[in-house]
């Protein structure tokens, strides 16, 4: 054991001396690893960034909310079975709420209707087109993480009366009101004036998933009153208006139970006889996640594979240089063997040499990647980049493994050299 330690120390010393005496060669070889590690590390940060952004977008959906919709949140092969389903009417929410109130120990808390359209919004000379316009009730704040930067969400009275008030997203506010506060100003939607009562704080967009930044919300009563939903037909002849009912549950650990209860309530609301299949879908965030996770994972695997190739090229460089090193020092290996170096000693010596080179490359690569992440984070604040300690550990482990695998073949060759042949080598 002690001898092993001394041999290890000796090997490190040789590796250091070797790198110093062949500085150019070592640097160029390490460059391959540096590039590889930078590529892999950046990919890693991008992937974890995507993951974080994805989860952030998902959080908008809320993990304690059930969504009653016409279409399920997963790809379906038999779309014709869903197409002719009856719409989910916003009135269902009231009926569900009445049933919840009448049920003792209900696992549901409150039902919130939402109805949406794409609309243009104007203020003064500024206009934003195709804004996701949402009609809902004041209970909406219970089902979603809404955070007002200025003002407030519309209240219960405004909600009930169908007041002409609106809460606008950060990006919408930014375009319409570049230099003034939007609060108490009136914006024009569909030819009607709505007073701005609140502005959402910035949420950030990611992959075009849900974001409040480019939405506006108004009381459902006003929404239904001022927008003629029947005529909302797009170029394909389909009604653009979408409505659903979201139901907040009391205890998110009992989501399945709540789902069963909601299923029963909805069957009652729809008046379905027991033998008929339900003609609506109940979704939760988790279901949505599980359909998107494979996509996310595919991106991650493909990305890591492609960047992994550059690391592989770096590893080949290391292997090559270690072979050269073994060749150049054949006589030295012979001498060492004559002096009593065992196979293991020689193997270790060259493995450590290649590993040291990879570790050096990995370390430099990591430092570079850190600064690049920092730069990207500064340049594109919306891109959720994550540089973590786990990544540092992982890339160091990858460096060591690269060194060991790429150094193994040459080191093995060296350790098997016949001392007589090696000593005679010129």
């Amino acid at each position, binding site marked *: 054991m*002690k*001898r092993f330690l*001394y*041999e290890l120390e*000796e090997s490190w010393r040789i590796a250091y*001396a*070797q790198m110093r*005496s062949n500085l150019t060669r070592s640097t160029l070889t390490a460059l391959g690893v540096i590039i590889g590690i930078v590529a892999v590390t950046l990919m890693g940060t991008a992937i974890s960034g995507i993951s974080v952004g994805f989860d952030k977008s998902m959080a908008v959906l809320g993990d304690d909310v059930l969504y009653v919709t016409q279409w399920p949140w997963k790809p379906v092969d038999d779309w014709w079975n869903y197409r002719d389903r009856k719409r989910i009417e916003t009135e269902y929410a009231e009926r569900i709420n009445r049933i919840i109130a009448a049920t003792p120990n209900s696992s549901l808390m409150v039902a919130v209707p939402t109805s949406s359209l794409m609309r243009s919004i104007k203020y003064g000379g500024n206009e934003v087109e195709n804004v996701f316009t949402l009609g809902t009730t004041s209970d909406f704040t219970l089902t979603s993480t809404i955070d007002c930067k200025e003002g407030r969400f519309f209240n219960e009275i405004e909600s009930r009366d169908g007041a002409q008030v609106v809460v606008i997203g950060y990006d919408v506010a930014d375009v319409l009101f570049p230099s003034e506060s939007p609060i108490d100003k009136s914006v024009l939607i569909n030819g009607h004036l709505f007073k701005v009562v609140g502005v959402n704080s910035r949420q950030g967009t990611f992959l075009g998933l849900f974001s409040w930044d480019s939405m506006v919300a108004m009381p459902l009563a006003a929404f239904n009153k001022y927008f003629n939903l029947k005529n909302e037909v797009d170029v394909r002849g389909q009604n653009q208006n979408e409505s659903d009912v979201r139901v907040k549950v009391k205890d998110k650990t009992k989501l399945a139970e709540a789902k069963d209860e909601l299923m029963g309530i909805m069957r009652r609301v729809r008046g379905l006889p027991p033998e008929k299949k339900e003609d609506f879908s109940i979704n939760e965030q988790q279901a949505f996640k599980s359909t998107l996770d494979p996509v996310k994972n595919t991106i991650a695997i493909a990305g890591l594979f492609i960047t992994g190739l550059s690391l592989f090229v770096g590893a080949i460089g290391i292997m090559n240089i270690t072979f050269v090193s073994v060749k150049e020092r054949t*006589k*030295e290996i*012979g*001498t*060492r*063997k*004559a*002096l*009593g*170096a*065992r*196979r*293991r*000693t020689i193997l270790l010596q060259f493995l450590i040499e290649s590993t040291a080179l990879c570790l050096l490359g990995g370390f430099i690569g990591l430092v570079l990647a850190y600064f690049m992440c920092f730069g990207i984070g500064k340049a594109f604040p919306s891109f959720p980049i994550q540089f973590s300690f786990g990544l540092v550990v992982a890339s160091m482990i990858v460096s060591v493994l690269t060194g060991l695998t790429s150094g193994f073949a040459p080191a093995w060759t060296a350790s098997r050299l*016949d*001392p*007589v042949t090696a*000593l005679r080598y010129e």
Partner: protein
Amino acid sequence: MDARQSVRQLGPIVIDIENITKDYVMGEEIVRALRGVSLQIRRNEYLAVMGPSGSGKSTLMNMLGCLDTPTSGRYEFSGRNVKEMDDDELAAIRNREIGFVFQTFNLLPRANALRNVELPLIYAGMDPESRKERATQALTDVGLADRIHHKPNELSGGQRQRVAIARALVNNPSIILADEPTGNLDSKTGEEIMALLEDLYQRGNTIILVTHERDVATHARRTIHLRDGVVESDEQTFVPRLETVAAS
């Protein structure tokens, strides 16, 4: 007392080979480098192995130095069967029992004299302090106390060979195996190295000298001539002084 008798008195047998052969496969043909060599070498002998090139001199040296194993025959080193040893056991024997001195010195170019001499001790697993102490002592013994931190390229040829000899000595080996130790040196420096080997011999070391120079071989007490892979002659070339025999 005849010469043979006095050799026997030198000490126990270190190397005992009997009828060893070594064949090499060179492409299509088999080269029979050794065709049956028997030899006994005792502690505190000073032996020269001579012969023209192609006589099997180098092959015999590789066998004696445990760098290679014979094709057939028996080889015992201090009573241990070398022919049966694996690579690591051979490495251990080379490390502890044999000190090599090469014609081309074979020092590690980037390591200073001290580190070069320490190398066998590292492989033997000695701790750093004792290692340094022993290596420094060995370098002092060969007259290089003031050169221990010099690198090989800062030393003269004779000094380099002294470092190599110190390295060969540092593990207190049973034999010192010197392969043409003066081959790369001018004659004056060569004489100095031979004087150093003589001194080591006087201090009780066993020395095997491989050379093709008669002048060099005359320093030895016993000379073996090889020709075509067999021992042609084995004779005492220098009658050992009796006081040396008595002392050992």
